[in-house]
């Protein structure tokens, strides 16, 4: 009776349950940050890692694709962390951002977008070559996956790539997103990520919106809007360039 009551309440009020879970996760993360690392590792960085660990176990338990959100009791996490509320909150971070800073970095931000898409694509293609792929469709799809996990499957579908190659491209993009989320606070110091200009360049180069905004949140939350403003153009640019120009160029070489 009690168990059924709990299940009904948690499942029937998913979003609210999500607030509780995230609140508890953050409390634990900030406790770990303060007591175990004496504040050296930022609480939100630990919270993101905890979230990813929960997502891993959620995936193992349900064999689904949405991490913890696939566990029916915790489905609200998917709503809270879904693209609608995420994008809404990203827009809200620009409350307090400085328009002059964005204008100052405008040209560099735009060029970083093109360099970012091109660079990730080339790296993906080269690694795919090393693994023995030599047809333009597979190479382009895997290269597009290294751009983001959204560009990969869109490109693969447009070019009629095999489902195995599309799966690889999605996985490559997911690895990129997770690594940017977790790694950003650790490399920030070494790559000069402490000002709006480099945050905008960062968003343009990395491009994965979830990775960049998550990583910057764990580094210095004031930088989030600057990274986000460029990163949100990246996937669109990738979807535009990969199945067209970059595919044609790849086809010319192989």
């Amino acid at each position, binding site marked *: 009776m009690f168990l059924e009551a709990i299940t009904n309440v948690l499942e029937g009020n998913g979003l609210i349950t999500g607030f509780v879970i995230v609140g508890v996760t953050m409390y634990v993360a900030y406790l770990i940050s303060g007591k175990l690392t004496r504040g050296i590792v930022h609480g939100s960085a630990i919270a993101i890692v905890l979230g990813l660990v929960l997502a891993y176990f959620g995936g193992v338990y349900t064999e689904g*694709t949405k991490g913890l*959100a696939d566990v029916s009791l915790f489905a609200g996490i998917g709503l809270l*962390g879904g693209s609608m509320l995420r994008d809404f909150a990203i*827009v809200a971070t620009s409350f307090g951002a400085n328009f002059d800073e964005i204008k100052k970095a405008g040209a560099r931000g735009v060029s970083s977008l093109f360099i970012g898409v091109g660079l990730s694509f080339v790296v993906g293609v080269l690694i795919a070559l090393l693994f023995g792929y030599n047809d333009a469709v597979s190479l382009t799809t895997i290269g597009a996956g*290294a751009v983001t996990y*959204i560009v990969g499957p869109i490109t693969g579908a447009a070019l009629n790539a095999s489902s195995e190659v599309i799966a690889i491209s999605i996985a490559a993009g997911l690895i990129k997103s997770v690594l940017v989320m977790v790694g950003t606070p650790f490399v920030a110091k070494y790559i000069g990520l402490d000002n*709006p200009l480099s945050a905008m360049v960062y968003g343009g180069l990395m491009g994965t919106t979830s990775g960049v905004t998550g990583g910057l949140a764990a580094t210095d939350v004031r930088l989030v809007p600057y990274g986000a403003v460029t990163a949100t153009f990246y996937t669109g640019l990738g979807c*535009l360039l990969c199945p067209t120009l970059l595919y044609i160029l790849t086809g010319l070489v192989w």
Partner: protein
Amino acid sequence: MAIYGVAILAGCFVVGMFFGEIIGTIMGVDSNVGGVGIAMLLLIVVVDKLQKKGMLSMPAQSGLAFWNAMYIPIVIAMAASQNVLGALTGGPLAIIAGVAAVVISWTVVPLLSGKKARESAVEFNQSHPLKTQEVK
């Protein structure tokens, strides 16, 4: 009223997304291109105009500030709903391609942001002091 702030935010969001869809269609891409970015720029401009006219009351600002502060919790919920298992079971090619793309892009950041960025960091820290209390 707080809802005024939330409504301004939501209005900018919807308008930005609309233009993102239009740009996507014009470019022939099956995705929203820069909708969030446009919404952000719009919000910055709208809030700036309203603040200068003194038309953005404190409660209205609190509606904006709330969603601003909810950003990190939402990112954590997002992390918890990622396909981490899929990423780790994608095989060595996927893992190496993903890691290589990130590491190489990292090394390019300082090259692209350049010296100017270093100088602006000092200025930025003076004009936007860290509010550590707020984060906790």
